[in-house]
């Protein structure tokens, strides 16, 4: 019967429907065009910036590949010689240490752009070095490099660069120097000061997350029972408490930890403690909701069964409720710790302590190699936390 009724209904409708459909489709397209057109404008989409900006981002990307992790002590030999770029001004006379390496230049008066041949002797054999141009106020500019031979000698050519002549420009500004700097590493490889600081801060980050998570667990476990529908909605008072708890969770959860961190840095000052409070407060809500939902999903069967044996309420909770929630509680908690480690890197950006704090400093000071060390450390620790939390969660379930 039904099968016959359907086609009949269809045949009476098509003309109107088809027309309406295409109009509706057109309208939909127009609305979508308007929405995305506006979106394009307000978000100031600027695709060419992706290509014109590469030169700004390149040093950072390059340095990402060579983080400042290991270092060695270096020893160096430095010899300077005075050069004048103005024939009217005599070059500076710098006395050479007769026992040290010796330097000779083709001329000590060399205008900007002219070539200069540098000959060195008595340097450490088979050592590489850099030639720096040094202006009146001591700014160094690399102008070439060299490699000494078995006798410790080298020959290099340098083009005289145009440099800032200093505030007291005038004639004296022409008096500049050529610095020959040979250096070689000595002693064993060791962690660079940056690496040591990064390690210290990453440990601080992990512990910041641990303290915040622990604080949240202590509050969220008891609260989660108050936010479990199956336990609380048996009488009007309980129902009220249930809704209050759930609203508290929902409101708190909707406030980003970053905003909480800003509030707490104002309250307790910059540093990891503000981060602990921010993560802790946010995690109370996040964990409380997960815990409550876990309690709501427990099987009432075992509770009924243990009650039927004549057990007291405490025994019922211990033997029928706890075994059903503990593994998930552990899993949720470890997952939250993992999330908090990730969040605490961002929280550092607003002064909440941890590695984010120094990462932001490195970026602001354009110390990209140091920033790279921090970025890699974060990636490593977050990856490891992610892996181990997954393993432990799997075991717990």
């Amino acid at each position, binding site marked *: 019967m039904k099968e016959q009724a359907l086609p009949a209904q269809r045949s009476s409708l098509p003309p109107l429907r088809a027309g309406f459909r295409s109009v509706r489709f057109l309208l939909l397209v127009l609305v979508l065009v308007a929405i995305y057109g506006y979106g394009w404008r307000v978000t100031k989409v600027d695709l060419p910036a992706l290509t014109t900006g590469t030169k700004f981002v390149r040093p950072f990307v390059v340095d990402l590949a060579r983080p400042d992790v290991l270092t060695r002590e270096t020893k160096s030999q430095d010899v300077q010689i005075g050069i004048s770029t103005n024939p009217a001004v005599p070059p500076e006379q710098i006395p050479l240490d007769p026992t040290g390496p010796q330097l000779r230049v083709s001329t000590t008066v060399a205008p900007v752009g002219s070539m200069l041949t540098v000959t060195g002797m008595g340097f450490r054999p088979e050592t590489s070095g850099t030639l720096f141009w040094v202006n009146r106020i001591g700014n160094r500019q690399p102008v070439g490099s060299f490699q000494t031979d078995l006798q410790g000698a080298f020959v290099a050519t340098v083009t005289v660069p145009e440099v800032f002549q200093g505030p007291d420009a005038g004639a004296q500004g022409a008096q500049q120097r050529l610095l020959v700097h040979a250096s070689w590493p000595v002693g064993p490889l060791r962690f660079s000061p940056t690496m040591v600081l990064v390690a210290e801060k990453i440990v601080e980050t992990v512990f910041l997350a641990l303290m915040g998570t622990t604080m949240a667990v202590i509050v969220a476990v008891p609260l989660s029972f108050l936010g479990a529908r199956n336990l609380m909605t048996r009488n009007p008072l309980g129902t009220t408490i249930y809704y209050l708890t759930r609203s508290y969770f929902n409101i708190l959860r909707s406030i980003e930890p970053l905003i909480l961190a800003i509030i707490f840095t104002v309250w307790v000052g910059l540093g990891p403690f503000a981060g602990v409070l921010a993560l802790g407060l946010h995690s109370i809500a996040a964990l409380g909701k997960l815990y409550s939902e876990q309690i709501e999903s427990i*099987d009432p*069967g*075992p509770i*009924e*069964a*243990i*009650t*039927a*044996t*004549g*057990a*007291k309420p*405490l*025994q019922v909770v*211990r*033997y*029928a409720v706890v*075994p*059903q929630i503990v*593994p998930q509680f552990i899993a949720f908690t470890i997952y939250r710790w993992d999330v908090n480690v990730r969040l605490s890197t961002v929280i550092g950006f607003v002064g909440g302590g941890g590695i984010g704090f120094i990462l932001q400093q490195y970026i602001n000071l354009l110390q990209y190699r140091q920033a790279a060390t921090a970025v890699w450390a974060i990636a490593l620790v977050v990856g490891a936390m992610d892996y181990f939390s997954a393993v432990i969660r799997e075991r717990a379930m």
Partner: protein
Amino acid sequence: MSGAAVRVEHLTKVYADGTVALRDLSFGVAPGEFLVIIGLSGSGKSTLMRCINRLIDPSGGKIYIDDIDITALDQEEMRKVRRRMGMIFQQFNLVKRTSVLTNVLAGRLGYLPPAWALLNYFPKDEVNRAMANLERVGIPLKARTRADQLSGGQQQRVGIARALMQEPSLILADEPVASLDPATSHSVLKYVEELNKKDGITVLCSLHFLSLARRYGTRILAVKAGEIIFDGLPADIDEERFKQIYGEEAVEVEIA
């Protein structure tokens, strides 16, 4: 151990939503009887079982266990009476993530100080009792296994061992084999029968299949829409009675 006598007088249960589950039910169970309760799903079998140990509070009427009116008891007194009433469930109701042994030991909680629960402590003789009961239901080697690793039949035997820990004088079995296959059903019911015959424990057991009811029951009570429509010997259920209990369209299914 000796069986308890049960007397139910004018038992009525109306749920909060107005559903009438039991209407003015009256019957008695003699010590050592194996009373099988049959009836369609929703006929009130489960509610009746749960009223007897007061997991559900009756709306009216009285229930006497060995001449004690349990409907008049307060929570603490009722808890003490419950200790002697074992209950077996359709879904076994074991705590899945804990060991079989702990599940069995949980049957003894009513006799133990609650503070021990915080330390998960059970005295040695209780552990021995649990092992003896597991041996009795034929699965002593599963003691350390997690309950959810067991087959359905084994889980129900753990349920029986848990009930045995209570040293019960009455066993309430709420469709104990409804989740099991026919062969397993028999093996489980045989353990219940043994408790009834050997230990003289009174058994109230609800079942779906008439063939099982005939095989194990010493007496049959049929419930329909919260009322008793048959109370008598298994042999007395003929074709006409059967249609009365299960409806005109029902066909009796034999279970091997």
